[in-house]
């Protein structure tokens, strides 16, 4: 019998060519992946380069622990201790506000909510994450501070309390979604085991499910802290910004100033190269270090959990059981003390007393109540937490829609501003924001997707991937205002690009890069290994496998991630404040090297610096909100659509 000549044949020449091509592609992806590390290094270098003089002139200890921040006084004083304390206090307040609400809401969503309620709550929480920080700040400035001023009868509502509540609201979605993931990841066998010995639902939740998810919840809280510490615009608009330590230190009705707010306020007016300029970069270094520590510990905790899933039986609990009991007792006492102090300061006297009495009654009645009643009360509290979260979203959205809608008109959308934005429209700002966002995503998308492909498809876990991943994590945890400073020092000044569209686009691109990498990585990892093996087993090359088998099913996930990034970039103020924007301009930019107007910055200036622009404020906030929330809504719909499709 004659052997039939194979149709599929590989000659030496083509295989050599394809080998070189494979190498080239791999190298290309490696370059995009290492960019994250390069950027982090550059950020550190340039912050240190410009911040270094202040550490030499003033000294590290006086800089960190000096109690007066008076950069323009004579003689100048550069002590950032009040700012560090301010940052910590605001963050603590935010966490006290956000943690009970978030955990209640997370338990509600993952354990109690019916599928229908869940389908409303989950997108609502994502929308809450989508509202730009400057819109939060605007809402806080107009509504929250006024409420506090009236409720507590104080001269101004711009206080620590206002900043903490606002930051707490902004940290809610982070904490809720990460703790919900942790709770949902508790194996169903634990739940069944508990129910099978006759525990009721609340006992199962409180004694088995939540304890099992505790480390994940802890990581969620740490990430929430990171979010709160890095926030600039919202805090700046409601905190009052007096660089003093509250007196007494628990006086939540005192104005307060954070590290980030200081950068946001003073960076725009400082003369380059002065001592003050270098002090601001010194602050950025301190801020960066604080956030890095916080974010890395959260990442380490989450990674520890992920590894723990595979080595289940050998894993030791994080805190040994023998220490846990006394530890818990001490933690409880501290928590109660903090709550009582906070209660008495934050709530008017009689209200605090009422709440305290109710809590005491509940505590002492606990043993007398049947567990059915305890379950009812607990579920009531948890449901209330979820309801409050939903109510916050509805209040913010409806407030801006109701006040902004009447001022919205065709002219407003198509005319340049007049009289410093009091009249006229916001056309140049809309176009400027679109230019900025388009440029940012064009830069970040290919780089981010390339990096993710390298990380998932081309390497095993090793020293290099760990380095790159750490780079991505660090970039992800960097506060947006620090990107703004870096963009200013490196792109605007060092590369002499000037305050321009291009500088803003690059800065925004660096900021969203880690998110693009993350979401792409997640979608690639969701593609089962068997698909890759099937393709490779047919003799396909790596790149053929990736481009033809792995990427197509991952596209919806990657696109969703990109849309979320567009939404985030459109709403950011801090990174473009010093790199790309002007406040009022009648003209559209004609080249990449001209500055532009942008919606979030326009809103910020209208709300803080231009009296008598109230109608246009609301309308600008509404347009920004529609733009950003619209992006999020599209992303949610895209994801939902493809999820449904993949389920068949």
């Amino acid at each position: 019998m004659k052997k039939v000549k194979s149709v599929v044949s590989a000659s030496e020449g083509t295989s050599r060519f394809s080998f070189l091509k494979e190498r080239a592609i791999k190298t290309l992806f490696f370059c995009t992946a290492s960019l994250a590390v390069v950027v982090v290094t550059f950020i550190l270098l340039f912050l240190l380069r410009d911040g270094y003089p202040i550490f030499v002139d003033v000294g590290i200890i006086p800089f960190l622990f000096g109690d007066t921040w008076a950069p323009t006084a004579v003689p100048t004083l550069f002590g950032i201790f009040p700012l560090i304390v301010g940052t910590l206090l605001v963050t603590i307040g935010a966490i006290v506000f956000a943690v009970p609400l978030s955990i209640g809401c997370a338990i509600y969503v993952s354990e109690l909510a019916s599928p229908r309620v869940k389908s409303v709550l989950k997108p609502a929480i994502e929308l809450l994450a989508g509202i730009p920080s400057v819109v939060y700040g605007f809402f806080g400035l107009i509504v929250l501070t006024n409420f506090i001023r009236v409720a507590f009868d104080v001269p101004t509502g711009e206080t620590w309390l206002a900043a903490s509540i606002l930051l707490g609201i902004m940290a809610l979605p982070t904490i809720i979604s990460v703790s919900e993931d942790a709770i949902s990841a508790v194996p169903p066998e634990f739940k069944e085991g508990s129910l099978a010995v006759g525990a009721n639902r609340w006992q199962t939740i409180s004694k088995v499910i939540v304890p099992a998810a505790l480390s994940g919840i802890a990581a969620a809280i740490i990430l929430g802290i990171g979010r709160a510490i890095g926030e600039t615009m919202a805090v700046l608009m409601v905190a009052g910004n007096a660089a003093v330590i509250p007196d007494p230190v628990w006086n939540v009705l005192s104005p307060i100033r954070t590290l980030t707010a200081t950068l946001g306020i003073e960076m725009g007016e400082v003369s380059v190269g002065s001592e003050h300029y270098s002090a601001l970069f010194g602050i950025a270094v301190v801020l960066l270090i604080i956030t890095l520590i916080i974010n890395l510990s959260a990442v380490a905790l989450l990674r520890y959990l992920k590894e723990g899933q595979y080595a289940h039986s050998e894993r030791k609990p994080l805190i040994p059981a023998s220490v846990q009991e006394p530890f818990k007792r001490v933690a409880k006492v501290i928590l109660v003390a903090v709550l009582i102090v906070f209660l008495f300061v934050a709530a008017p006297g009689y209200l605090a007393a009422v709440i305290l009495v109710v809590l005491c009654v509940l505590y002492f009645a606990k043993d007398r109540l049947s567990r059915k009643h305890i379950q009812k009360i607990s579920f009531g509290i948890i449901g209330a937490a979820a309801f409050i979260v939903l109510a916050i979203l509805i209040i913010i959205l409806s407030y801006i829609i109701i006040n902004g809608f009447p001022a919205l008109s065709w002219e407003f959308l198509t005319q340049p501003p007049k009289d410093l934005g009091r009249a006229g429209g916001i056309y140049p700002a809309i176009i400027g924001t679109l230019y900025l966002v388009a440029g940012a995503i064009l830069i970040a998308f290919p780089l981010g997707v390339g990096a993710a492909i390298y990380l998932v498809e081309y390497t095993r876990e090793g020293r290099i991937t760990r380095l790159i991943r750490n780079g991505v994590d660090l970039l992800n945890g960097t506060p947006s205002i620090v990107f703004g400073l870096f963009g200013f020092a490196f792109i605007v000044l060092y590369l002499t690009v000037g305050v321009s569209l291009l500088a803003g686009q690059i800065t925004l691109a660096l900021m969203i890069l880690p998110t693009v990498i993350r979401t792409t990585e997640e979608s690639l990892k969701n593609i089962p290994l068997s698909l890759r093996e099937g393709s490779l087993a047919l003799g396909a090359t790596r790149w053929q496998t990736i481009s033809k088998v792995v990427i197509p099913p991952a596209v919806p996930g990657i696109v969703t991630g990109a849309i979320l990034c567009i939404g985030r970039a459109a709403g950011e103020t801090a990174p473009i404040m010093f790199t790309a924007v002007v406040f009022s301009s009648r003209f559209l930019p004609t080249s990449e090297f001209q500055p532009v107007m942008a919606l979030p910055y326009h809103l910020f200036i209208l709300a803080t610096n231009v009296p008598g622009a109230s109608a246009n404020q609301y309308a600008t906030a509404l347009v920004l909100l529609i733009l950003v929330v619209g992006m999020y809504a599209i992303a949610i719909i895209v994801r939902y659509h493809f999820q449904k499709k993949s389920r068949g």
Partner: protein
Amino acid sequence: MSESAIITTNNVNLWYNEKRALEAVSMKIPKNTVTALIGPSGCGKSTLLRCFNRLNDLIDHVKITGEITLDNKNIHTPGTDVVLLRKKVGMVFQKPNPFPKSIYENVAYGPRVHGVKDKADLDRIVEQSLRHAALWDEVKDRLNDSALGLSGGQQQRLCIARTLAVEPEVILMDEPCSALDPIATAKIENLIDLLKKDYTVIIVTHNMQQAARVSEYTGFMYLGKLIECGKTVQIFEHPREELTENYITGRFG
């Protein structure tokens, strides 16, 4: 059957969405005996077992008709306290599922949720349950260690101890040995033999030898139906139904 029945089912049907998983199942489980449910995969034996403590309630879109009684009381009448039912009808799962707590806390969990607070009482219950589950000697010096550090067989006996600690009347076992090696399996089987003095055990198994070794009564299920039910000796030696004989002699399965 001569002994009094503790659980009876009468014409029980169960649907997952549109799919019928149990069809007209009627049987009696005699008190203080070991009853085995055997049958090929997907025949509904685990589903039936999970009816007895209403653990199927956790799954969406399940519909049950017919009557199941425990101590002559219908467990589906409105107002039945499911929590109390599950205290009376304990369950051991296919895969050992100790909580991520210490050994002591795992056993004490049940009594605690039922309101036992006194430390001395708890200590006594924990020791008794662990002894009963033939685990005490192996773990008495490390009660505060994590339960996840135990071997698979030890974890399963810990789960049995956890079940015993709430003093149930009936213990459901859903293929309790399928994840274990032969030595650990032998220990559990011995334990089951001891338990029937005080408890009624219903065990689901796909291992016919195991059913023959540990049980006095056997029910054979096929495609959601209870084909035959009777003394184990009779089922294995003189099956009435041809299907049963085919399965037992290994002609399908």
